[in-house]
């Protein structure tokens, strides 16, 4: 979807991270979903990067 198509449609947002940003959106009636995000592989960066590579090669 191009940027100009985005301008024509209702903005619906997926929020990863600070919940206060999600709260601000819902307070304004903007459809939004908060992801219960956690670091992949228990925060082990080497493992996370390996997992990331596996995922992107799918």
């Amino acid at each position, binding site marked *: 979807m191009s940027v100009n198509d985005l*301008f024509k449609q209702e903005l*619906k*947002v997926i929020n*990863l991270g*600070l919940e206060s940003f999600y*709260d601000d959106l819902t307070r304004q009636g903007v459809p939004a979903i908060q*992801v219960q*995000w956690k*670091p992949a592989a*228990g925060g082990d960066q080497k493992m996370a990067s390996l997992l990331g590579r596996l995922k992107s090669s799918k």
Partner: protein
Amino acid sequence: MIKTIIRENAYYDSVTLMLISREMKKLEGVEEVLAGMGTDLNLDLVKMLDMFLPELEKVTPNDLFIAAKFDESKVSMDDLLASFEAQLNSKKEAHAGQYQPPTLRSALKLMPDARLAQISIPGQYAADEAENALRKGLHVMLFSDNVALEDELRLKKLAVEKGLLMMGPDCGTAIINGVPLCFANAVRRGRIGLVGASGTGTQEITVRIHQLGEGLSQVIGTGGRDLKEEIGGLMMIQGIQALLADPETEVIVLVSKPPAPSVEKKIYGLLAGAEKPVVIDFIGGQAESVKKAGAIPCLSLEDAARKAVAVLREEEPVDFDGFDLPPEEIDRLVREALARLKPDQKYLRAFYTGGTLADEAIKYLGAEHLIYSNIPLTPDRAWDKLEGRAGHICLDLGEDQFTRGRPHPMIDPMTRTEFFDAWLDQSTALVLVDVVLGYGSHEDPASAVAESIEKARRKLQASGRDLAVVASITGTDQDPQDLEKSKKVLEEAGVLVMPSNAQAVRLADRIMKAAGI
């Protein structure tokens, strides 16, 4: 007594934990407390605070810890834990009944027509999630910082290839389809479109456009590094192209620190055939080249707003470097400020929460005054070179050096409050501050400033002294904070509230010159 509690595999975002830590610190008998995820940064902080215990050796960034130093005759670790739980529960209650999926993929299953991912997770994980979102066809607003430059380039190239927006990393402000994202003000919709590489710069311009009676079609953020040579202005260009093609946008505003020469050339090339007027504030530079490119250069963020509104109304865009108030009223304000001061009160203390606003202040005041800063005009004016506090300072308190392990001062006024407490003394003549309202910002930053000023005044009263204080508010009547109340609270504390940062800075300059400091 020093104690630590660890909870494995419990993840909470950093702002939540920092705000909870601050509340726990208010308990009687608590000397220091830090609730955080087991990242290297947080563990370094624990060491710095002398609270590191051996059990912290094994924590991972996926584990929560609470480290505390306290007087056990007054408070216990159980009390701290109870306070932690109570605050967490009150947050959970606010989200009761809302299912929060664990991944972007599962979120997209619930909301298949989602258009944009707003990402503010820790920087080291942010690029992967942003790429994930782009590959799923989502536009991205990436608030996180500490993302590698090569990752930024890769993400932006991917976004351009897919025709998507990749706003950020380190993008604080955007307004898409009228929806303020992250730190943005509530402004009416209208016919001016903006692409900004400067967060609070963008906020200031959009707020002034709103106050002048016009509105914004789209506000696209790029992140602060977009106009560097390495990134090549990929998102600025993508944004300009989108606004040129957008039928709702009649005038385009660009705001950024001066771009790399090659990027500047690309932008001007793009504007050559533009049928819409373009107003450019490359803060502190390149007015002649902007003119040559057929665009309209600006003197300040406020001037950018005024010129955009003028050309929209088919009026002549004239330079504005004065005041809204008549000259005699400004003279009166200067006299009023001087009347508060004794001859040995000599120094400016400018404490900013907004980076671009601080930058604008330093560039203006630094031209005629010797201003020390953490973002100095020249290296010899770095604020750590200031000896015995004998000189003017203007600080951007949102810079990394002041925000380690604590929220940005726009979210939590604590950092600035501490600077007020430590720096406002008998030698202080003039205080200059910004008060930034809007989504993302603290619920009442004006009261925090007013309280600090009143406290400093009480401290100085003993020696028969007072302070001159100048402020501006970056906020609108539609922001979640109350603009009128914010102004009133400041004025009641004896603060001269000016209509823009540029005017506040000019008034500060006038007061400094009149006081001979």
